[in-house]
């Protein structure tokens, strides 16, 4: 596989300049994720409003280009969505990475679809799957109010 498919400009851009980075104000849900193999850490913060909508979402942490880009793209796509939709999206993300299943276009805007699908190539690098999925697992933990940090070695 061509490496430029994995390291697309979009991924490199989000890897270098992550969006929604830092602790967001008024976060009422958060969770931590950890990859003990490489020492990567992520902390996802989100604000779920009274209508169960993700009003705000952000993340902190360090990791490789894939992991940072995946976190950054995730926050952009999930922001403003309902909790239910966020859960549908994270399942779709795991299906895309692990089973190569494309996401239903109707679920996202064109821009969101491009961003979401830019990470599909990671599935062809089995050793890097955990880099891409850690933030999405951590998002689920935040929605579930899971206090125990997510350990990528146990989950994937």
């Amino acid at each position, binding site marked *: 596989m061509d490496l430029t498919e994995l390291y697309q400009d979009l991924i490199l851009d989000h890897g270098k300049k992550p969006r929604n980075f830092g602790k967001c104000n008024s976060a009422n849900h958060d969770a931590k994720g950890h990859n003990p*193999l490489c020492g990567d850490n992520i902390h996802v913060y989100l604000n779920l409003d009274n209508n169960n909508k993700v009003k705000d979402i952000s993340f902190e942490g360090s990791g490789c*280009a*894939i992991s940072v880009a995946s976190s950054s793209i995730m926050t952009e796509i999930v922001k403003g969505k309902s909790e239910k939709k966020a859960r549908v999206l994270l399942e779709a993300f795991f299906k895309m990475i692990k089973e190569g299943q494309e996401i239903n276009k109707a679920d996202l805007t064109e821009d969101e679809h491009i961003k979401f699908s830019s990470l599909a190539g990671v599935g062809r690098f089995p050793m890097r799957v955990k880099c891409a999925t850690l933030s999405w697992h951590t998002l689920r933990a935040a929605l579930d109010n899971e206090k125990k940090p997510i350990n990528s070695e146990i989950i994937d």
Partner: protein
Amino acid sequence: MSLKDIKSKFPIFKSNKKLVYLDTANSAQKPKVVVDVMDDFYRNKYSNIGRGVYSLAGIATEAYEQSRRAIKEFVNGSEGEIIFTKNSTESINLVATCFSKFLKEGDEILLSEAEHHSNYVPWHFLRKKKVNIKFIPINNDGELDINKINSLITKKTKIISIIHISNVTGHTSPIKKIIEIAKLKKIPVCIDGTQGVAHANVNLKELDCDFYAFSSHKIYGPAGVGLLFMKSKWLDQFDPFLGGGGMIQNVDLKNITYASGVSKFEAGTMPSAEVVALKEAVHFIDQLKIKNIITHEQNLTNYAIDKLSQINDVEFVGTPSSKSSLFSFNIKGIHSHDVSTVFDQDHIAVRAGHHCCQILHKKMNIVSSIRVSFGIYNNKQDVDTLCESIKKCKKLFKLN
């Protein structure tokens, strides 16, 4: 046999023609002779050792003990014994666990900031006995600050355990000096020799440490076998580490007496084929002569560091003056795992991450790094391929 055509002795390079294996510090590839001995043992000579009284069992037991003698000779462990374990990690766990009976609240253990987790975690367990662990600091070059040792040793220091060669920076610890200092104060010393044997001259009679731990799979032998050199006096002073078959003398309903010597520490069925094949690995190294191996690997390390220094954005993790056969680096702005994925496309195998040395990485203010470690089969062409791949990586990540 010479180092020139050495790659041909390793089957892995026949089935993976493009492989550039730069991860020997993680685990060494196996020469055909080692694989053949294991194969022959399982096919033609296998039985458990130290149990049966039939001929086959006798032959297997003798082969196993021959291997012990060969290893003892290889590291000149004349005033002690060789115990077979699972790996270096288990060897150090054995020492820490068995030594703990001599420790009480407030006692001190001295380690260094360069320790692999295998020479820290087993000692950390002893903190539950309210024992304190102190660390000899490392400087920015990754070298142990030997001047700090005297002030760190107190009357409460009960044991010193130090890495021989750092698995991150390649720095050779001044173990001879440390052992000399410790001896004056009658403190036993354990050396984690995992990266030492097969890359440096290890003469345990000269070193005169109490314990020296190393692993078969890092010295071109099979995985699943660890080694622990233990000075004879500890054999009797230590209680057994694991209990079971093979380590007893007599068992009745109320009392058990233990086997004497090394048998006391080898409970249960041991990996006999692996131990027997390890002798062949030692023989293989002996034939090449350790001094030739050291020269070959140090030349390669110097060549690699020189070539990588010429590439912008390459940042080394420590620059110790006493280098061994490995070093670590980062490409500024690119995570080590991304670099490793790019290398992998060029069939280059390196270790990326913290290499089980989080303390050292934290001290250097980094999370992870890429490690290049050489074995006898590497050559300058491998280094040139690595340099090309680094340039490719920089281009991909737009770092030019």
